[in-house]
């Protein structure tokens, strides 16, 4: 039981030493850690862990080797990862059948298995240590503190890695001092709009009310975004600590985690962390012997994107239908059950302990003038290094895409990067040298959003991209306000008309007008940004829209109605493979004698022939 600063410090000293022993091998043991993030778990990292345990037993290494899961390494396209301490050897893309080799060669005989090292695609050099991989070189891990390093299901490792030092520091200050510190740090909400966190706290602090709440928004819904999930999976205690500091600052005694039910691992680890902290007395009444009491609760979201919107989220916690409430009143004045409530994103709260623990300067030294610290991005789409990256604000898109992301696969040409999820926008070639921060992205017509970053290349049709996002938004509109509910549907209908080659210039006018109406007149953040995919793609790629409308042409050959598959008679080897793969018998020809031909009237443009042809004789046009 930890009931005072003294007992906490004793515990921390002990745990730090234990973790140091493990990482540096001071206890004479070697430690195997296996990535336990959702991505790697999907690639059988659970089985890999079990295999290690089995083989360690088989070779009687229990006294010499420990093995456990850690949180996400971030480099998800190369997972699952296995790391071995104290040598700090990193194996990538490990399969269950590789485990025996690692155990027999490395653990038993100290011979590294270099074939499992990451190979730099440019230099083809094998890299043994994580820090030497280009992907990691420009990264700074503040919010991802502890992820990929500590065992998220063991509070001792978290305590050995800085946990609760921030809270301890906060409790030695007055609540207003904590708020002032956060204000000075320039920390802005990582969930989307970038509202200054300290100001939000100040509003809630200024409310005279015995009951206040802190809510952590873990309803990460943007397609392709998984920052919050990885943080919660990798170091849940860090977020809990951030929440408690917020609670202390504004005078709240209860905090709610609102996490998507689709994140079972995050929820499980959060539950374990809460339970362990409660057992140690670090969550509960009179924390560290002070007057500060705090309790943490978990609520699961039911899969509605709109519940990431803070007022809809509050309704959902209250057991109501997840629909936004009009603001004002703002949640800081009247939030959960009408009480002053602050809602902070997972990543925001994850930054808070760092600021208190490491001090203001160590936070503000990163970032730009108005956006301090770092930002986690989920890099995806047409990019070599798909994964989670944390970079200082002010990093340029070029660094993000080419240095860290490793560029576009197959030598294709970069076309755009979508930031901020469906509500964000597209940035193009001309924006590549823009330093990434909240204000720059907005000025360029996009937004930071929660940090999704999807790269598109020349094979992407931007009208189709806009349609994809509109379909998502249309599906996820809660149905409350009419511009969003009906307007997004009408936009989607117009887009469908355009991609089918039936669009007119009038449709384009309607599209833009509707988009502006939705933006100006919708109730919540989702609605106000619902038309961004249109506004952003039309601003940057109007030529593609006009091609679709005037020339009935899709330059990326994505829109089925505006493209066709044609067999190049000269390249055709008359093998009939295409015809045999065609599901509608649209291809005819004589094997070995006559080149094959596609009957365009029958063709459904499924692309089966295109992928089947071994001689690249089929073209899209």
């Amino acid at each position, binding site marked *: 039981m930890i009931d005072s600063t003294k007992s906490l410090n004793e515990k921390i000293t002990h745990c730090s030493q234990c973790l140091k022993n493990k990482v540096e091998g001071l206890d004479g043991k070697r430690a195997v850690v296996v990535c336990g993030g959702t991505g790697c778990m999907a690639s059988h990292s659970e089985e890999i862990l079990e295999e290690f345990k089995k083989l360690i037993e088989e070779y009687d290494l229990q006294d010499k080797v420990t093995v456990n899961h850690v949180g996400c390494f971030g480099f998800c396209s190369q997972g699952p990862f296995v790391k071995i301490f104290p040598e700090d050897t990193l194996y990538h893309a490990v399969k269950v059948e590789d485990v025996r080799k690692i155990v027999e060669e490395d653990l038993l005989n100290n011979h590294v298995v270099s074939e499992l090292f990451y190979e730099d695609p440019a230099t083809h050099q094998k890299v043994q240590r994580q820090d030497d991989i280009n992907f990691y070189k420009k990264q700074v891990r503040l919010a991802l503190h502890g992820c990929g390093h500590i065992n998220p299901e063991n509070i001792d490792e978290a305590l050995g890695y800085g946990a609760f030092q921030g809270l301890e520091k906060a409790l030695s200050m007055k609540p207003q001092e904590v708020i002032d510190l956060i204000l000075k740090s320039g920390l802005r909400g990582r969930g989307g709009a970038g509202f200054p966190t300290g100001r939000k706290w100040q509003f809630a602090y200024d409310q005279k009310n015995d009951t206040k709440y802190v809510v952590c928004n873990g309803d990460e819904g943007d397609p392709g975004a998984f920052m919050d999930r990885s943080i919660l999976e990798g170091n849940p205690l860090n977020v809990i600590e951030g929440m408690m500091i917020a609670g202390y600052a504004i005078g709240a005694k209860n905090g709610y985690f609102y996490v998507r039910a689709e994140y079972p691992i995050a929820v499980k680890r959060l539950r374990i962390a809460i339970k362990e902290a409660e057992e140690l007395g670090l969550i509960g009444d009179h924390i560290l012997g002070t007057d500060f009491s705090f309790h943490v609760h978990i609520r699961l979201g039911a899969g509605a994107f709109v519940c990431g919107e803070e007022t809809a989220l509050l309704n959902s916690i209250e057991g109501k239908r997840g629909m936004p409430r009009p603001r004002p009143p703002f949640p800081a004045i009247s939030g959960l059950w009408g009480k002053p409530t602050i809602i902070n994103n997972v990543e925001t709260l994850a930054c808070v302990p760092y600021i208190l623990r490491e001090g203001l300067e160590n936070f503000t030294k990163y970032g730009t003038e108005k956006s301090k610290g770092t930002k986690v991005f989920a890099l995806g789409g047409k990019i070599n290094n798909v994964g989670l990256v944390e970079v200082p604000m002010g990093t340029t898109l070029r660094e993000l895409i080419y240095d860290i992301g490793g560029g576009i696969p197959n030598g294709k040409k970069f076309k755009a990067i979508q930031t901020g999820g469906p509500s964000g926008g597209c940035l193009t070639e001309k924006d590549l040298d823009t330093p990434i921060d909240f204000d720059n992205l907005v000025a360029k017509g996009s937004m930071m959003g929660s940090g999704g970053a999807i790269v598109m290349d020349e094979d992407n049709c931007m009208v189709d991209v806009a349609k994809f996002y509109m379909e998502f938004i249309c599906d996820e509109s809660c149905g409350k306000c*009419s511009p969003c509910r009906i307007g997004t549907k009408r936009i989607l209908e117009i887009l469908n008309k355009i991609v089918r080659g039936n669009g007119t210039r009038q449709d384009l006018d309607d599209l833009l007008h509707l988009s502006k109406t939705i933006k100006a007149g919708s109730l919540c953040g989702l609605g106000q940004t619902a038309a961004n995919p249109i506004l952003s793609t039309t601003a940057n790629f109007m030529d593609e829209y006009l091609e679709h409308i005037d020339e009935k042409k899709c330059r990326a050959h994505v829109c089925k109605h505006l493209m066709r598959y044609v067999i190049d008679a000269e390249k055709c080897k008359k093998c009939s493979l295409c015809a045999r793969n065609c599901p509608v018998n649209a291809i005819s020809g004589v094997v070995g004698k006559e080149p094959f031909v596609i009957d365009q009237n029958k063709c459904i443009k499924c692309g089966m022939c295109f992928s089947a042809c071994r001689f690249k004789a089929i073209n899209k046009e």
Partner: protein
Amino acid sequence: MALVNIKIEGRPYQVEEGMTILEACRSVGYRIPSLCTFNKGQCSKASCRVCLVAVKGARGLVASCVYPVNEGMEISISNIDAIEARRANVELLLSNHNMNCQQCDKNGHCELLEVAKIVGAREGMYQGEKTPTTFDNLSPSLVRDTSKCILCGRCIERCKDAQGIGILGFENRGFNTIVAPSGNRSFATSPCIQCGQCVNVCPTGALMEHSEIALVDKALKEGKKVIVQTAPAVRAAIAEEFGAKIGTVGTGKMVAALHRLGFYRVFDTNFAADLTIMEEAYELLGRIKNGGVLPQITSCSPGWINYLEYYYPEVIPHVSSCKSPHEMLGAIIKSYYAKNHDIDPKDIFVVSVMPCVAKKYEKDRPANRAVDGLKDVDAVITTRELAKMIKRAGIDWSYLPEEEFDDDLLGEYTGAGVIFGVTGGVMEAALRTAYFALTGKEYPLIEFKEVRNVSLFKEASIEIDGKVIKIAAVSGMKNAKPLLEDVKNGKSPYHFIEIMGCPGGCINGGGQPYVHPNLLPNEEANILDTYIQKRARVLYSEDERLVVRQSHNNPDIKRLYKDYLGEPCSHLAHELLHTHYDAHREKYPQVKK
């Protein structure tokens, strides 16, 4: 109340702090078009986006129905962006609306149509797919047609606020969202009490009463002796349908109109209200004298009876077995009246004009068939439906003379009957008679002031013959719930409780003329706070005007008992005038396919 300085279109105004922009603008002479908003936020707040205005410094446009004014605020309604946004939002709503306006029963009372006119919606904008819809007319009382719904959420809030039930909610998401009982069940198969409060607030034709005008037409065409009766609350509101201000008495003209519509006889349900009082007062006396189950609870509101059967079946022994007045009159017409005039009851068709849609359900109850298995009442039309019948017959309301109800055995009525239409009225009327029955004297102060205001829950105690009788009157099921909990748990301090389904009583019933402030430019801005009182005043002044104000002094009632029924609660009276309730009514009955 503190004042704040604001500017509207650049002109300075002082308005009350805490008002919304919409209210503030209205208070100084600007009407912002609005659709979803109703009665201080009794709606899905800020959802229609038809009341958008430009506010200097605000991000985007602002929904004036929820945004509070503050010092120095600069508002523009005429801002072109705001005008275009309002129009576009209405056009979007119209693009997903069933545009059969000409055939829509709400034609003439439709707020969407009115707003479309104001914002200048253009024809054919934003056409496209429409939300999959549900048409539910399985309930005898209510019709739900989601093709006309604009998701304003007023019905949802009204059901919660008035009845505490919340039968309605949003179903599905996004473009497929509809308003429905849970699981998109029918009103007929969900625990809806059929009160029709939702109909009263619906701005479009999405929620309507189940019209029975066609039944009446058919009976008239077949040459049946169609006898019509009108409930007390109808006269307090029908004139509104013809442009009169709320609170205008319409008795004489209404009777004149009914005479012109070809009805065989025009009776007043008030006669039956007097009859109900006799039965109910004597039932109460019986319970008090014989140590019966107390408190006794009134039974004339079918919405309340539905609530009882669904939600408080344990309380059934407390509820008076009296039929509601129009059912009593139907039974008397088909027995006593038919016998006296030597008419075959099968040839009689009784039509009730009611402020209520639950009565439509009530008339179909199997227990309400006293004479030869015939329904006591054959058709129920609402105040609104009667107005439609008057209009389609070409009758000009303003020309109508004042006429009297037909004086044919069942013609007389008293002040006691009149006040049935307002919460507390049944109680008051019953006490006048109970006092007489117990003491043999008329109660010196005829009006029980304690129960006379339209607040939704009130109580009083009176001394009758040295015995203190504690009474309560409550309306709206949400208000009744705590009392019913007490009754259920044997803790109720009362002897007699009056419960009415709709807040304020029948004058605010689900079949009454719509009170939609947006469509009533001649009423004050706060009409939603005052219309119930205004209608109640009509009934109370009627009561005061009448010479005979106690049911037991109604000469026709006296004759009915002397010649036919014998005495109150006699065997024959029980057969004709009393009913029973179903404690085992399935909570969620299935419709037979």
